[in-house]
């Protein structure tokens, strides 16, 4: 069944044509003096709102300890299977030997990543964060697989106040009171 929509007939002023031209131009001139809403990307960059889900990165705590303990929960939860972790043991002589476990290698394939943020949500150590970088490019597939070094470079340091492992080490040094 077809519906016929009748066009509204033009009124007298519209039929005159010129007044409508003037009305349109007035809008144009008004906007010329206003602040533009567009940006000259990529020279100008937008401000990224808080909580934005950009490229996933690994962070260190204020003391420079890598926060990831390679529990592989992000690898498990990652919907497109972009994350690949090789777990490893932190050797006995290391400053962070009390943490025991850390990633030997940590790779995120940015060609697979869908920026869903599940990895950040699931991380029990708050080690993986989607920060505000949003634009990526490269000449090969390999270039777009972020390895551990790159991820820490992108991530930087996170100012957090937990120091869970430091407290644990202090408790061990303090002893059990026994």
């Amino acid at each position, binding site marked *: 069944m077809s519906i016929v929509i009748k066009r509204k007939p033009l009124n007298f002023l519209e039929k005159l044509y010129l007044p409508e031209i003037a009305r349109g131009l007035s809008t144009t001139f008004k906007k010329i003096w206003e602040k533009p809403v567009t940006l000259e990307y990529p020279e100008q960059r937008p401000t990224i709102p808080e909580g934005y889900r950009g490229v996933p990165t690994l962070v260190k705590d204020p003391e420079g300890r890598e926060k990831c*303990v*390679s*529990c*592989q*929960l992000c*690898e*498990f939860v990652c919907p497109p299977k972009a994350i690949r972790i090789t*777990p*490893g*043991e932190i050797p*006995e002589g290391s400053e962070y030997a*009390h*943490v*025991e*476990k850390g990633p030997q290698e940590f790779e995120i394939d940015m060609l697979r990543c869908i920026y869903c943020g599940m990895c950040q949500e699931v991380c*029990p*150590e708050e080690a993986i964060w989607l920060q505000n970088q949003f634009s990526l490019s490269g000449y090969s597939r390999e270039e777009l697989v972020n390895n551990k070094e790159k991820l820490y470079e992108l991530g930087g340091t996170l100012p957090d106040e937990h120091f*869970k492992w430091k407290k*644990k080490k202090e*408790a*061990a040094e*303090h*002893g*059990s*009171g*026994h």
Partner: protein
Amino acid sequence: MEEKENLITVNIDGQDLQVPPGTNMVEAAAMLGKEIPHYCYHPKLTIAGNCRMCLVELGMPGRDRATGEPMVNEDGTPKIMWMPGPAIGCGTKAAPGMHIKTDSPKALESREAVTEFLLINHPLDCPICDQAGECTLQEFSSSHGRGYSRFIEQKNVKPKRTRLGPRVTLDDERCVLCSRCIRFCDEVAGDSVLGFTDRGSYSTLTCFPGKELANNYSLNTVDICPVGALTSTDFRFKMRVWFLKETNSIDFETSVGVNTVVSAREGTIYRVKPRRNDEVNDTWMPDSGRELYKQVESGDRLKKCAINSVEASATDAIAKASEWLQGGGVAIVGSGQCSVEEQFALRAISDGIGAKGVYLVARYGEDDGILMSVDRNPNVRGALMTGLVNDLPDEQLGELGAKIDSGEVTTVFSVKEDLVAGGLTEDQVGKVKIVYLGTHENATSSRADVLIAGLTQFEKSGTVINQQFRLQKFSRVVPGPGGAIEDLYALATIQANLSGESYPSTIGSIWKQVGTEGSVFEGISFQSLSDQGQLLDGSAFERLLFREGKSLHFEPKKEAVAAD
């Protein structure tokens, strides 16, 4: 089997259940599909009753104190006198008329209280703990835990990363003091080296001074540890358990045929664990069998077939082998490491070409009376039952050597066996043409004129027959290397080439021939064989002097006589 009249009727959460005498309440509830949470109770160990997690409400039919008459309710049913405090399920054996409640408010409250105490000093290690994902403390904390901690004092600090033995690492902070590992060492392994020191919440699991947990069953303590306190040094921090796909297999180390489950991720094997089979290995396995998976990726693995030491495709190698085996003067060296199906196909080959002799190489080791038998071949009985050989094999191929020296044998087809290790001299090996089907480099593979790269037990499916004449199946865990070919397929193709008729080359199809009427395997198929295995009639071989002594679930038919 228990006789019907011996059964005792108990009532669990309002459901009547008949159980054999001596059944404890954890097992009885399991028969109804109800789980009573527990840590220290293990079906194959004595009952310690120290974790208190399996608390249930317990009641017995009341009797009038004055008259001794059973008390009844108004409707005529027996009146149940409930005990004021809860009782542990594992230490409560079935008694006539016993009533228990596993999910009453009091039982649940008891579990919550026990869980809270257990978590007081437990570290928040789950992200780095290897047990996470298969940890009963983790599971019961989510079902019976509070979700937050009321504990404001300092947590106990105990030693972490302690070496208990060459294969076991202990994290004392995670220990819930269930004592399963101590009982295992005392009762099953017969090597008492573990114990608790200190008291109360300072109790610490440790080795006795000057001792270490080094026996060949030490890794079973890791399996039965309900938490992540005991960890396998080999598997530690390698892979999280939720990534692992588990496949049922058999330990190829000895003729005991220990049931195992092999865990792999994306074609890489990470660990081997025992699988419960009450007729064979209970829930245990030797440590040495857990190392076998390393052969899959070992450096000396044969990955390509070859003809005259020149790399060749598997098809060409098989064609060349078939050609040479037709030439006459062929002797066959089979193996107790092969599956029943492969031995069956090899027998067809030997019958077809009229082989000058079929030999097996025996491997004998020390008997430990638990799960390591004298016979270190997993499937010698398979070779007997398929008719590949009629007698027990010797450790040396002396007879074959003599036939080579006399010129009777000019070609040797060896499946999985190194002829030099089997006792032939370099000179004898040099005299004959060798067709070798194997998995790893050895003196025979380097001299073989035709080399067919085969698969290890983890890369194929099949069956083996253990010392009890129990037919057990193992399944493929990971795919084999690209250039290798499945042993059964290679043997079947050779047989097809030799006979000019088609021959079944897959497990499913060959069982149609193996299980034909009149054979000892009648009515069996690979698909229908249960994971617990099937006992076969081994009475035809009673005349043979098998060397195996007594082990966990095996009584030798005859006195084990040293044949030599």
